[in-house]
């Protein structure tokens, strides 16, 4: 089933705000084995000029993937989410995420295409503060593997 090209450019309203917690940052940094003091020690983060713990560069995926997943499951888009794999990921930061940030994600469908039986959807999640200041954009390529592409 091909994805619906009419969805290109469509923007989805943000869900509830995500409050970035110190312990979540520490848990995530520990899970990726990263001992950089800016991720664990508030004093070290402040010495670098940040108001609180800094989140690792891939941390925004926690909120961005949730928002992208919700968007691409819109039935009108026609993507078989049960067969989705992550094809590409890119982050473009205005500043790093820090503990205490209250962030919302606005998802836009940037591109859809079908290649060799695989449906591909590119989403961009713009992560901003509640005041609307840009923090990071997370661009994600999701590939729904076609049945015929398996053989």
């Amino acid at each position, binding site marked *: 089933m091909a994805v619906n090209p009419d969805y290109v450019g469509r923007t989805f309203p943000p869900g509830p705000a995500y409050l970035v917690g110190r312990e979540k940052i520490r848990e995530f940094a520990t*899970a990726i084995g990263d001992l950089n003091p800016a991720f664990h020690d508030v004093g070290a983060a402040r010495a670098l000029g*940040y108001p609180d713990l800094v989140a690792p*560069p891939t941390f925004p995926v926690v909120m961005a993937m949730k928002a992208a997943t919700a968007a691409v499951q819109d039935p009108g888009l026609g993507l078989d989410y049960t067969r989705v794999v*992550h094809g*590409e990921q*890119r982050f473009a930061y205005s500043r790093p995420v820090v503990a205490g940030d209250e962030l919302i994600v606005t998802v836009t469908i940037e591109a859809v295409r079908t290649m060799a039986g695989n449906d591909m959807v590119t989403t961009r999640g713009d992560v901003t503060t509640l005041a609307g200041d840009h923090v990071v954009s997370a661009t994600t390529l999701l590939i729904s593997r076609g049945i015929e592409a398996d053989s």
Partner: protein
Amino acid sequence: MTAHVRLADIEVGTALPSQVFHVDRAGLVRYAGASGDFNVIHWNERVATSVGLPNVIAHGMLTMALAGRVLSDWVGDPGAIVEFGTKFTRPVVVPDDADGATVEVTGKVTAVNDDGTAQVSLTVMCDGVTVLGNPRAVVRLA
């Protein structure tokens, strides 16, 4: 400890300190919990093999995060990373044994720009093949 590399210290071709990471099943469970990505193929061998994978595979975002460690260790201030992206081209297969998978990350500077940024290209290998496609970053250095 973290180095704090400066723009004046680098040129095109400057190598980043390479690192080798070990990824085991416990690490996948820990990353699943921390990231909220509980896709079954990252922890259940029965399901992974039933969809045609050789075994349980690591989260692509975990492999990307390991590559990110090489960046943040190099720049010292993780907020210096202004862009970071990759394609996920091959899976990191994680066997259920004491060693798990070994991921090796190397990198080098590919451009030094007039605006105080540098572009870095990474190479991420597992079992002798690259697992990430064109992983690269832009960092802003003092």
